[in-house]
């Protein structure tokens, strides 16, 4: 299925869950936050969060800034 991850097109098999996607993007989950379709999903809920066609996923962490 087709998703948008961090603003870019992304392919995932049907039935994929958030946990795997995050693991693929960030080796270490500490300091990572995730939003799906504009709502934050707590880390504890990643395993149980199914992803669907067209979902917009943001996976962010701290970066140097002013």
């Amino acid at each position, binding site marked *: 299925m087709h998703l948008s991850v961090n603003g870019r097109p992304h392919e995932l098999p049907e039935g994929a869950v958030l946990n795997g996607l995050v693991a693929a993007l960030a080796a270490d989950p500490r*300091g990572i*936050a995730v939003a799906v379709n504009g709502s934050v999903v707590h880390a504890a809920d990643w395993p149980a969060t199914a992803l669907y066609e067209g979902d917009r996923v943001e996976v962010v962490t701290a970066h140097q800034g002013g």
Partner: protein
Amino acid sequence: MQIAGEELAPLWLGTGGLTSLETVRRVVAAGAPGLVTVSLRRVSDTGDGSLLATLSALGVRVLPNTAGCLGAREAVLTAELAREALGTDWVKLEVIGDEHSLLPDVVELLEAAETLVGRGFTVLPYTTGDPVVARRLVDVGCAAVMPLGSPIGSGRGIADPHTIETVRAAVDVPVVLDAGIGTPSEAAQAMELGCDAVLVATAVTRAEDPVVMARAMRLAVEAGGLARGAGRIPRRESARASSPMRGRVGR
């Protein structure tokens, strides 16, 4: 100075533009900041991810910002993600009107501030030198106000010192000068004008020697704070002798 009951050193540092984590370590050691700011960015764009580890090893408080957000909705989501990622409900709230001037959009800022306060955030808004807007930010529950001295990264210092004095007089929360500082003298001036802290980013991170500049800023902010309490002499139109005129030789 205190935010939400917590004592903080009066120099606050941004981290954007530092070229290595080692420089981050040395700048923080030299500046002994009350906190350092970080931005939230997509993992795919952040490169080296160990900034947080570095900062927590230093034991310095981290303040996430919403830098670059152009509307209240974006800023609120970024703040929510920051709380989740960093485990802090403090946020430097930045909502800009356009990507060129980087000046605050006070209408969107007020909306975002009210929303975030309602969700339990400790909101520190980057705002203009407008005392009426500052009062409104306090009315919706902000923990401090952070007026700009001049545009972000411009190094032009405090373009109109009177605006900072009026913001200071308008609110009873801490006032933190944010944006525009280029030199220690300008940081000291901010404190002399009544600010409780000064946030410096580019002036340190893009100086030729960020470590020495961080130390200079720390000293200057302390100097300005001491001076405010020490009661400066009045400005005078005419001169006043500092040596006695009586008893001069030959007169």
